[in-house]
């Protein structure tokens, strides 16, 4: 365990050193982060800007803002921790450099999941955290609610990681996986809004088919104290099930890997 923690520290140091060489890119990353959170904020601002509108899907403005904050935070998590790693899997399979990863005396899934970071997009994390805290400060929040929300949000991050890993693992059979993650990004865009803001059939799709509801709506509900007990249990169960399944899927993919030349 300590070995893996030490490795994470080493990986982080190496990737930081490589990225900070391009200092000019910081401005660009900040602009992009601002634009992305701008999209999410404008979406709810126009909705609540209509005369007579006090709630969307039963959520007040600050409650909906909480969802936007968690959405931005999750986008940041994806662009800092997940995407830089997952986008390299397809390339490694195609060029055969996956061989080196598999030969190393550490778990290959751990290695490909933690090797790279995109520190430039840390701004997303900061904006997301800021929005979440700002929104929560306008709501009555209990310590128990914060704890529950934090735990459920960890489950949410596990779910996001598993979906990305599963999509990227298909690279062992298909050459390109970028399109699959693009498609997930499209569906994930719906997480800007509380899931109750959608018509009922779509809500079911966002809960049971692509579990987007568990990523932003459920932790926000825990924070506002409006969470049904069923969902408290469902979220960790979904996360655990997805983690086990993607782990099995990954092992199977590695088992069928025959390098680039054969």
């Amino acid at each position, binding site marked *: 365990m300590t070995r893996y923690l030490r490795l994470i520290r080493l990986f982080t140091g190496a990737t930081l050193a490589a990225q900070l060489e391009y200092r*000019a*890119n910081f401005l660009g990353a900040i602009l992009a982060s601002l634009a992305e959170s*701008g999209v999410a904020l404008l*979406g709810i601002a*126009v909705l609540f800007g209509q005369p007579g509108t006090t709630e969307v*899907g039963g959520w007040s403005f600050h409650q909906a803002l909480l969802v936007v904050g968690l959405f931005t935070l999750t986008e940041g998590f994806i662009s800092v921790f997940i995407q830089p790693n997952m986008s390299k899997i397809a390339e490694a399979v195609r060029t055969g450099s996956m061989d080196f990863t598999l030969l190393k005396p550490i778990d290959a899934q751990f290695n490909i999941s933690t090797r790279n970071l995109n520190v430039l997009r840390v701004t997303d994390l900061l904006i997301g955290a800021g929005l979440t805290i700002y929104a929560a400060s306008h709501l009555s929040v209990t310590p128990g609610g914060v704890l529950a929300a934090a735990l459920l949000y960890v489950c949410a991050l596990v779910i996001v990681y598993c979906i990305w890993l599963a999509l990227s693992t298909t690279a062992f059979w298909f050459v390109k996986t970028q399109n699959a993650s693009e498609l997930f990004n*499209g569906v994930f865009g719906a997480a800007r809004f509380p899931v109750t803001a959608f*018509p009922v059939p779509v809500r079911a799709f966002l809960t049971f088919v692509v579990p987007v509801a568990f990523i932003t709506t459920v932790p926000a509900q825990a924070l506002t104290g409006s969470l049904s007990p069923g969902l408290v249990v469902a979220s960790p169960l979904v996360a655990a099930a997805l983690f086990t399944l993607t782990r099995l899927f990954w092992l199977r993919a590695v088992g069928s890997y025959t390098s680039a030349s054969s």
Partner: protein
Amino acid sequence: MTSLWRKARVLFITRFAEMTEYRAEVVIWMLSGTLSLVMMLVWMSQAAAAPGGEIRGYNPSEFATYFLSTWAVGQLMVVWVAWELDMEIRQGTLSPKLLRPMDPMWLHYAAHFAERVVRFPALLALVALFAWVAGARFSTDPAAYLAAFGLALLGFSARFLWEYTIGLLAFWTESSTSFQEVVWLVYAALGGMFAPLAFYPEWVQRVAVWTPFPYMLGLPAQLLAGKATLADAGRGALVLLFWLVAFWVLRLTVWRVGLRKYGAVGA
């Protein structure tokens, strides 16, 4: 003239052959641009829950019509040239293209145009499917479709030129593609992708009418929904033409200045 026509034809045919290779991807790209569709679902359920079943005179079916129309028009408006220029300039693959007796811009323009032809049948099928599911009803006036199509063509050309200019910024900076994201946000907001323009605060509307954005996205969508007149379309076309000229001059200036800088790097 005939030689120009022949050039254009060859450009189109070669790019079309290239783009048909990507036909499966084209459908995925179409489905991943979901902002209009997400906004449509949220507004529809807002209207259904509102007293009287409508917001500012839009009932759920009218919201479906408007947002499906912006989705369709937005699909005709997709431009990725900034990414390609960014890569070509950084990796130097722009150099061989400079040897040809033609501005490399036309290669990109033809590629985008050919992709639109590949995209169109799939677009019609998807719009028909979504319209049937969401209960959208489009205009029955053929003139409205022609006008919307004309505006979309002008709007696409304007967007192509400004994206091209942003892509050219790669001569100076490494983060040209993030400028593109910021400009996209302005385009989506003022174009009416979040809501019809009349839903915005009045000062935003007053600013928006001077920009090209409402006429390339919101106006064609309103024409398809039967909520705008041909006179509106004419006025919009004039504004777009003005911007088209402005972006053309801007693009040409940035290209000439940038090329001098590019030569200096290579030499």
